[in-house]
């Protein structure tokens, strides 16, 4: 397995969510008549289709992130959480859901008090059909073929997604477009850009599961180790970063500065675009950026000097976290969402987590991080459940109730005293709560992300400030959420090839000059076609 497979929100997650990039507001990129499929191609029609955004203001955050384009942060759970939804969304009939999970499956309904209470609050017995995330695409493909999808289903990566949705899913446009969405206030509270993933051929087919800035990859550092070595986290240039790595590497202590090759971080120093950049109406892949040779120069130097852990290319995602936590690699590149896991894994009570913002390579300011994908997936409603659309949307609305409400508290933390205990005003799950609440709810619909780290004083503020330091200037992928059939079919294969070359160059098995050849091959094998399809889809959607 290459390290890329193991990175959170790497290619895998993007593909698995399928929807994340896969689905998308691609007007007319289907095989039947690209760009000519009528509705939604002109600005006026489209703006009517896009759901209105109405921010939920019922709960005041301790630290408001909206103006920095980052999540709100809370130090405590609001003492008297508001009840945001008065009527149970369900209609008494069972709701079946096909989705994936990243956690152990919950105990069955009869032994699961959370699930029983959840059904009561929903007003319908909810049957979840969970699949481990890594296997979801296969399960999804067979479920589509066998017409076994649940009333609600997360769209997996599948060829010809738009056609599949047209055949299997309910067109939600009449219910969600424009101001219609206000009937479901918490779906209206989902970030505007996340809806890209759910709009197809000018129709809304899915409700996005939002993530965004929280899944941006950044450089974590162990503040305590840096301080002990007398080093400064605030590096000003590529050179200083290499110096920092040198200072942190200590062969006698078996310590290597970096847990893995900091490819993205170095690219950030050169302000290489996030996946695609716009050139007029065209899209240009970041692989073609001229700075790559310099990027590889730095990466090769880091590897050759032994500043990168020698197992960087052999291990799993988990190994990176372990190396960072036990201090054998005080620098690791990971997503913001990994923060709580790192807090938990620290064995040293004095351990400190800090983020190193990428500097510009030549020392002329701050580099640019890549913003995470706005959504990790979209949930669609099966055509077989067409008569119950309003109930099912109300159910998704219920699942999207934001932080600070009673609904959120119950959804994530269960019942007080049974599934969680209040510590310093914050709910902390117990073992029973942890196992019973894993119904895959966060992979059906979710509220916008919130920074909340109960039981760790000051951590929420640390993470908030860290995000504030890099996210406002972060580069978004202009084609995020846009659908391309070629990309859907070939992206994995193309990425595998290019990642292999990247690894070979960094480890010195191939010269830097091999990059240009690899990019050329990438373009002719499908990269150019993807760029073209995405650009057309983008153009058609504006």
């Amino acid at each position: 397995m290459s390290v890329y497979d193991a990175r959170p929100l790497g290619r895998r997650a993007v593909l698995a969510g399928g929807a994340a990039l896969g689905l998308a507001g691609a007007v007319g990129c289907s095989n039947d008549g690209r760009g000519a499929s009528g509705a939604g191609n002109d600005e006026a029609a489209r703006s009517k289709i896009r759901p209105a955004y109405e921010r939920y203001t019922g709960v005041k955050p301790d630290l408001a992130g909206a103006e920095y384009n980052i999540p709100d942060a809370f130090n405590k759970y609001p003492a008297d959480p508001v009840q945001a939804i008065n009527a149970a969304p369900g209609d008494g009939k069972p709701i079946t859901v096909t989705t994936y999970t990243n956690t152990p499956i919950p105990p069955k309904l009869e032994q699961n008090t959370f699930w029983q209470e959840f059904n009561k609050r929903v007003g319908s017995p909810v049957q979840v059909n969970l699949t481990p995330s890594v296997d979801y695409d296969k399960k999804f493909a067979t479920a589509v073929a066998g017409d076994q999808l649940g009333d609600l289903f997360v769209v997996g990566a599948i060829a010809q997604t738009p056609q599949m949705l047209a055949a299997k899913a309910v067109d939600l446009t009449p219910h969600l477009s424009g101001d219609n969405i206000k009937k479901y206030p918490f779906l209206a509270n989902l970030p505007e850009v996340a809806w890209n993933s759910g709009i197809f051929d000018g129709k809304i087919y899915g409700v996005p599961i939002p993530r965004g800035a929280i899944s941006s990859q950044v450089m974590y550092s162990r503040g305590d180790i840096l301080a002990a070595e007398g080093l400064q986290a605030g590096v000003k240039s590529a050179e200083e970063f290499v110096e920092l790595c040198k200072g942190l590497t200590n062969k006698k202590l078996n310590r290597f500065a970096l847990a893995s090759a900091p490819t993205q971080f170095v690219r950030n120093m050169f302000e290489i675009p996030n996946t695609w950049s716009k050139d007029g109406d065209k899209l240009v892949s970041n692989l073609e950026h001229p700075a790559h040779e310099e990027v590889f120069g730095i990466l090769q130097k880091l590897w050759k000097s032994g500043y990168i852990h020698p197992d960087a290319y052999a291990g799993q995602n988990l190994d990176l976290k372990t190396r960072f936590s036990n201090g054998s690699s005080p620098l690791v590149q990971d997503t913001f969402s990994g923060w709580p896991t790192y807090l938990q894994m620290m064995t040293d009570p004095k351990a400190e987590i800090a983020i190193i913002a990428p500097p510009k390579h030549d020392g002329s300011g701050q580099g640019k991080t890549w913003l995470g994908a706005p959504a990790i997936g979209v949930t669609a409603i099966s055509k077989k459940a067409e008569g119950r659309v309003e109930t099912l949307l109300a159910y998704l609305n219920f699942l999207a109730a934001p932080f600070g409400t009673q609904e959120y508290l119950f959804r994530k933390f269960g019942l007080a005293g049974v599934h969680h205990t209040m510590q310093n005003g914050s709910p902390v799950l117990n073992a029973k709560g942890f196992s019973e609440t894993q119904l895959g709810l966060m992979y059906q619909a979710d509220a916008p992300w919130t920074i909340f780290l109960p039981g760790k004083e000051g951590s929420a503020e640390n993470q908030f400030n860290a995000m504030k330091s890099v996210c406002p200037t972060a580069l978004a992928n202009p084609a995020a959420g846009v659908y391309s059939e070629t990309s859907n079919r070939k992206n994995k294969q193309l990425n595998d090839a290019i990642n292999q070359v990247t690894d070979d160059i960094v480890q010195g098995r191939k010269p830097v000059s091999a990059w240009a050849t690899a990019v050329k091959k990438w373009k002719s094998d499908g990269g150019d076609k993807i760029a073209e399809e995405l650009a057309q889809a983008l153009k058609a959607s504006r």
Partner: protein
Amino acid sequence: MKAKPAPTMIGGMPMPGLTERIVKAVFLTVVCGVVVFPFIGVISTSLAPAEEVTKAGGFVLFPTHGLDFTAYRSILSGGTVTQALLISGFVTAVGTALALVLTCTLGWALSRRGTIGNRPLLLLVLISLLFNPGLIPSYLVVQQFGLLDSLWAVIVPVSVSAFNVIVVRAFFVGLPAEIIDAARIDGASEWKLFRHIGLPLSKAVVAVVGLFYGVGYWNSFFNALLYLNDSSKWPLQLVLRTYVVNGVELGGQDLGLAGEAVPPQTSIQMAILMISIVPVLCVYPFIQRHFAKGVLTGAVKG
């Protein structure tokens, strides 16, 4: 004076010289070490406290800070895994029994020259060895038989393995024709020939094939993943898989499980390995002697 007879080993082979014996001993010790140490590592890591595992960088050879059963406790709490163990036991037992009946009867039929349709049937079996129907067609067939969400969906589709049929058939073909002819002269029917002559003479190969099927059923998770929607019917391996893939994207930890330290993934993974391997280890010694014999017999006669 008579020369002392050279020392011999059991069976009469001359005892090798000292150097040779030392070299062999060292070699075998190294080989054993290579096999045994990772296993000890697995056991130790599954029992080591969280901090120690993280400090050691993922693997612990000998826990020095006492034993910690958190990993096992967190897997076995909630009853999901215990129930999955029962289901896996059922699937393995019923599946293996069914598979053996089908494979042996089919193998016997194919081994009898002159059975109607012998050749085309054999060809059919061989074709299934070469060509895989693929994911979706298999799924549709299972669905059309109404097996979805039933444990039979995990048992029936894999109950005849062409490879095993060929092995069993080869064994039956190799049985001495005289015995079968003699029985037939005594008036035995085909069924009696199979039941009283063929099977008793083929215990070794049945044991081997049974082990193949048994381990296959025990380890399989993919069919269950496709065919069983209700996770309370999942077999052990699939339930355990949800523990291993845990944390690929956004794990459960991001819900703020701060007060309660979740055991590190590695120790959970190792505990999972132990749980899934122990039942097989318990059964293996009883079948092993047939296994060694069976493979050899198959090799010579097949």
